[in-house]
Structure formats: C-alpha cells, structure tokens
C-alpha cells in the first residue's frame, strides 16, 4: 500500500511538472506572437484580449491533455478535438450555414424523445464522454476532476508568481 502510494505521488507530481513546463512554454509562445502582432492588437483591444484569453485557455487544456498522454479516454478525445479544431470548426460553421433547418428539427426530436439526465450532463462536461457507458464515464470523471484541480492550482500559482 505504501509503495502504491509513493508511486501515485510520483505519478501525480510527474503530471503536474509536465503540465507546468508545457503550459509555461505555450504561455511564452502566446506572448511572443502577441509581441509580433502588438500594433494590430492595440487597435481593437477587446477582441485581441479575448483571442489571447482563448488561446491561453486552449493552451492550458492542451498542456493538461498532453501531460496525461493518450492513456485516458478524455485526454485522447481532448487531444483529437484540439488537433482537428480548425477543421471541425470550419466544417461545423459550413454545415450550420447549409442545413440550419435540419439541425433544428434533429434537436427537437432529441428533446422530445428524452429529457437529458444527469449522466448526460456529465457526458457533455467530460471530453469524449459521448461514447462511454456509465462505469467508464464515472472513472474518467474521477481522473478528469483530479487533473482539473491540478491544472487550477498550477495556474493559480503561476498567476500569483507573475503578479508579484
């Protein structure tokens, strides 16, 4: 039990350290790119701020998923989503333009057929939860919560350190 505990400690610490280094690197990249386009962002400050915030958020999630690796279903789904983000985004926008009516009817059918339960809400929150049964969903949720908490503490400490 004790050896298991130390292994778990080292494992969590490894994830934490990997996430911290990756996130700092991507933060640096965000800053460099914003340095490069500093003149254009000064014109519309709000939009640039929002874009940069989104980039930092995406960088945080990507760093977390890469730190966990492809062992977990949620990290795999997150990495897939991030990798194909541009493509999916463009396709979905196009589809939205083309078949707005179809989508609306489909949504209505789903809403009529079944009221979303709590497990479905959880499925939406956990990445890649659509294709899980309840047991796997709960297990992945546990790991996802752990990683999210780690992410929040690391980001908090980085922010505190940078503010000082």
């Amino acid at each position, binding site marked *: 039990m004790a050896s298991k505990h*130390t292994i*778990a*400690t*080292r494992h*969590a*610490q*490894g994830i*934490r*350290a*990997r996430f*911290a*280094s990756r996130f*700092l*690197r991507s*933060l*640096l990249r*965000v*800053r*460099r790119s*914003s*340095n490069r386009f*500093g003149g254009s962002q000064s014109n519309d400050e709000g939009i640039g*701020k929002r874009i*940069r*915030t*989104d980039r*930092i*958020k995406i960088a*945080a*999630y990507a760093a977390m998923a890469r730190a966990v690796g492809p062992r977990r279903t949620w990290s795999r789904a997150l990495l897939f989503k991030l990798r194909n983000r541009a493509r999916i985004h463009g396709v979905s926008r196009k589809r939205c333009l083309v078949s707005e009516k179809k989508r609306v009817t489909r949504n209505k059918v789903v809403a009529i057929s079944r009221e979303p339960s*709590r*497990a479905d809400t*959880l499925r939406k*929150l*956990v990445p890649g939860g659509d294709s899980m049964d*309840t*047991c796997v969903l*709960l*297990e992945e*949720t*546990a790991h*996802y*919560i*752990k990683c*999210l*908490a*780690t*992410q*929040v*503490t*690391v*980001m*908090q*400490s*980085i*922010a*505190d*350190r*940078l*503010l000082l």
Partner: protein
Amino acid sequence: MDPPLINETSFSAANPSSYTLAEIWPFPPPPPPPTRSGLRMDNLADPDGSLEESTLTDQSSGNGTRIRKTRDFSSEKDDSTKIVSTTTSANDLNDSNGKRRKITGSRSVNDDSRAETEASSAANNKSAEQSSKASEPPKQDYIHVKARRGQATDSHSLAERARREKISERMNMLQDLVPGCNKVIGKALVLDEIINYIQSLQCQVEFLSMKLEAVNSRMNTSTTIEGLHPKDLGAQPFVATGMIFSPQPTREYVQGSQSEWLHMQVGGSFERAL
C-alpha cells in the same frame, strides 16, 4: 442411508445383469420394463430404495444435459437432502461413470465449486458475465441467498448486480474526490454536486486564463521575454529530476534553486496526493 447402499452393492454383485441394467438405465429412458424390474427388486429389498432411485433419475437426467440445469435444480430445492442423496448415489455408481461421479462430487462440496462449474458452463456466454466474474466471489453468499428466495441467478441479473456494484464503488470514489460531497445522500444529488464542481473548475480555468492573459500582456509591455525565460528554463531541469529521482531530492533541489513558485507547486502536490 447406509442400508440401501449396502443392499444395492451386494445385490448388484450377486446379480450382474440387473447391475448393468441399472447402470445403463439413466441414459436411454424410453425402455422402462427392465429398469422396472430392477426398481421393483430395490423396492423389495428396501423401502428407502424408491426415494433414492427417484433422486438418481432426476440427477442423472440433469447431468446428461447440462450443468447449468442441475445448478438451477439444486438451487430451487433444499440442499441438505439433495447433497445426501447425491453422495449416496455416487457411492452406488462408483465404478460406472467417471464423469458423473466427478460432477456429483463437485456439487456436493459447496457453493464455491458450484460457482466454478457455473463459470465453466458460462464460458461461452456473453462478455458481460465474464466481466462480472471478477467481482463474483466476494458476494457469492449474497447470490446464493437471492437464488433461494427469488431465483435471480440468470446471467443478466448477475451482470446487472455487478454493474450496479461497480457504479456505486466509483460513486464513492468520486464522493471522496469532490469536496463537500460526503454529506450528500443520494446518487442524483451526488451527481449534481460533481457536475457543479466540474463546472466551477472549468470556470476557474477560464478565469485564470483571463488573469494570466492580463499579467502576460502587462509583462509584455513592461518587461521583455527574459522575465519568464529563466523560469521556463528552470522548469525543465526540474522536470528531468522529477522523472529520474524520488520526490524528496526534487524538493531539496527546488528549495535550492530560486524558482520559488515551483516549490510551491511541489508542496501542493504533496498535500494533494494524500
């Protein structure tokens, strides 16, 4: 139950033709007359022989077809008399059929062996039951009790029970993980609590990224990249030592270095891992 045993063995030793008939009789049920004669002789020899023969026919038919069926039979009926009768019949047909003797022996031992025979018979069943097999042995007694009362021993019920147990176990794990969730009773409320916690964490990530963006852009104007660069470089050897060594030297190393916030993270990891 000893007198019939002795009687039958002595009778069969004395009369080999009737013994072979009694041995062959369970497998082809249609020809009744010769077995009738054997039965009648048993009845004449002992009044208890009729009951013994009836149990023997029942059990032999079950053994000839399937193990599952015999399990269901035995779970339906009361076990004590059944076990006794099977032992006596096994003694009767001691040298007749090796397979039958083995099956009756395993059946008369206990519930565990019965579970084993069930597992071997259900090896070609669905994968759901195979997954439920891992958690079957600890709650074998529970299943046994349920089978006596309401006969819920089919594979679907077993798999469903194992699944529910697994889900409740995961829910307990999650309850330990989410703060303030231990007092909540009821699965739905626990799930609500978990959902709220995940949403709050995601909101925190959003808020922190906003904060980091502000800090980042402010440092962007005031200082240059060198403000963050040494820390970034300092993070990489920290990662390497964290991979190679145990946690304790890592902490000392970070304490030695000037990157204080990384030390805070390591301390936080120690607290969180508990």
